[in-house]
């Protein structure tokens, strides 16, 4: 064991990055052993934003607990809600009306774009470029406006209910989404001009933080982090839920395994999400937006597991029911936790400046890691 302040016996200095540090985007605490500028070891310390969400869910009814999960990965709160709603529906064996399914997928993909936009801006800021952050927020803002009109909130939407969505779409929804897509297509080239094509940026990202496909699998990485290493892990393709099996979109794969590959996966994923929205926005079926369910939901005795693809990777929801109105036990398999565990592996031997870039490409959201 070593002291958390000072130096190790070999004369390496130990630096505490966080829990309050601009690079960790939250309250992550990294204890880094440094030899000069070179990283010898990274040890993440968790728990600073642990709110016992899993335990809280045990005392909430099946309608209520969904909304607590918005606060896990607050950047893809809609998709978290979706995973929980799917799990409850699986237990209740409720058929979700086609209109609700389409609305859910549309909202999921909008959330995914918004999340990736924020990631893009924040990651550029980790590398010392401020301007991309504001450019990303310009587009993200119009998604938030769409969410606000239909769901009533901008960040923690709480729009999903077991059996469908809470209310029907706002009349402006289709118009606004089309406007957003036009804006996005007009502005997307700026992303490449400002960041992707930049020589300094490419030098900072390429051949940095290499993660092999084997390591990605053995550490349990998922989402864009694993797909950057060439692992097929898009839940929307492997275990399709809702109407994803009827949609045309590509699973984005990069084989580089370095920071740049992970970066490109997310950039290309945004375009795939736009493709999905384009297919659906003019084809929203008429009908109910919610299936008829009982006022008080009771899941039959048993265990239920569903998984969805959030913006960060695979989110699993595991419910153990004793047949009552509240879950007996809930466990979330969050993508951020497994993705963080790989940090020490990929960061060893690289420079301190690159650690920040790697954390950026892992797209860590700390409340998702801690729950």
């Amino acid at each position, binding site marked *: 064991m070593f002291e958390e302040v000072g130096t190790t016996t070999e004369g390496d200095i130990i630096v505490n990055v966080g829990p309050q540090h601009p690079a960790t985007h939250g309250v992550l605490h990294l204890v880094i052993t440094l030899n000069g500028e070179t990283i010898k070891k990274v040890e993440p310390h968790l728990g600073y934003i642990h709110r016992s969400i899993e335990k809280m869910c045990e005392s909430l009814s099946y309608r209520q607990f969904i909304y607590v999960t918005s606060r896990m990965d607050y950047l893809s709160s809609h998709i978290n809600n979706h995973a929980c709603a799917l799990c409850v529906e699986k237990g209740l064996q409720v058929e979700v009306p086609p209109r609700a399914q389409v609305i859910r997928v549309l909202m999921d993909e909008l959330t995914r774009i918004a999340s990736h936009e924020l990631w893009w801006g924040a990651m550029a800021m980790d590398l010392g470029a*401020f301007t991309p952050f504001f*450019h990303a927020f310009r587009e993200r803002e119009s998604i938030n406006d769409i969410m606000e009109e239909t769901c009533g909130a901008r960040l923690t939407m709480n729009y999903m209910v077991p059996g469908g969505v809470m209310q029907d779409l706002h009349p402006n929804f289709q118009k606004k989404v089309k406007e957003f897509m036009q804006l996005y297509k007009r502005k997307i080239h700026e992303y490449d001009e400002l960041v992707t094509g*930049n020589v300094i940026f490419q030098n900072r990202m390429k051949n940095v933080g290499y993660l092999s496909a084997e390591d990605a699998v053995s550490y349990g990485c998922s989402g864009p982090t694993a797909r950057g290493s060439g692992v097929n892990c898009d839940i929307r393709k492997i275990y399709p839920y809702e109407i994803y099996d009827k949609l045309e979109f590509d699973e984005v794969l990069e084989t580089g395994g370095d920071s740049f590959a992970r970066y490109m996966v997310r950039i290309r994923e945004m375009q795939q999400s736009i493709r999905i929205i384009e297919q659906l926005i003019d084809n929203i079926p008429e009908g109910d937006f919610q299936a008829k369910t009982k006022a008080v939901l009771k899941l039959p005795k048993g265990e239920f597991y569903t998984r969805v693809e959030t913006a960060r990777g695979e989110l699993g929801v595991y419910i153990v029911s004793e047949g009552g109105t509240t879950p007996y036990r809930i466990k979330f398999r969050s993508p951020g936790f497994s993705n963080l565990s790989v940090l020490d592996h990929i960061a060893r031997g690289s420079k301190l*400046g690159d650690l920040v870039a790697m954390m950026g490409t892992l797209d860590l959201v700390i409340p998702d890691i801690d729950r």
Partner: protein
Amino acid sequence: MWSFSHIANNLHEWLSKTFNPTMTLIIEMVLAGVAVIGLFAALGLVLVIMERKVSAWIQIRLGPNRVGPKGMLQSLADTLKLLVKEGLTPNGADKLLFNLAPFVAMIVAMLLMAPIAFAKDFQLWDLNIGVLYVSAVSSIMVISILMAGWASNNKYSLMGAMRSGAQIVSYELSAGLSILAVVVMTGSLQVSDIIHSQANGWWIFKGHIPMVIAFVTFIIAITAETNRAPFDLAEAESELTAGFHTEYSGMKFALFFLAEYVNVFIVCAIGATLFLGGWMPFHIGNWTGFNHVMDYIPSSVWFFGKTFFLIFVIMWFRWTFPRLRIDQLLNLEWKYLLPISMINLLIVTAMAILGWHF
């Protein structure tokens, strides 16, 4: 015509008539000192608001717009806030060095103002080794940063200071070599001589491509020397929170902050003087009518116009590029910039000997 040199000469005459020579010299020195301090503060305020407005413009924002007309008094309000804030000294810090460091930074920035020609014949000290003086004094800046980093008793500060030391020492070489290119062409280290040699054309136009290369190298090197992005590794806020001035607060922080901006002004002023003709107006060959119109613009406007253009370019860098990594930074200097500027200096010397320039 109204000009700075006119005012200065009148003042000198009046003082000489009223007081004896020693007294005149003392009063003039005090006046010059007050002017430098005033310029230091004024430049800091102007450049801070300029930086915020430029960044806002690049980042599709409005920037500060509450204090004063269009937010122009924002930096004044910020200064007031920093003045009344408590200047904390961290536990275990080396108190003497910790408190001395910001003043060293400030004094260096003020000393550097001496040989700069702000307008025609308006210069505090036209010493015959002006350019050498600037390169020499600006190297003291790194001492203040190392002092601040060491005395803070903070690992982030120490790492920032060490990075800064490596960076400034390296980039001074190519900055010096590109300055030498102009000195070789001019044959003088005196600032006024260098400016007068550009009466019929600025060096960046007269010196063909080698001069342009020297200019670009100079701009890159001074961006690194003043610790500005993309070379702001010393204060890399996403890695080292605030680098060497992490522990500073209140006015001590403000002095570092102001010194940084004044340094940017000074290096840009040197760049404008060496490559863009200082206060010399823009002339094209024998277009007499055009040249007369250009002459009509006051020399101080030319000087500040060129300097602020260069400052804008450096701010533009900052808000566009991501930061380099420390090894890439040193590679850029030792593997590319230094060999290029050395070969460039040889070519410039050959040009000067053979008289190939205009």
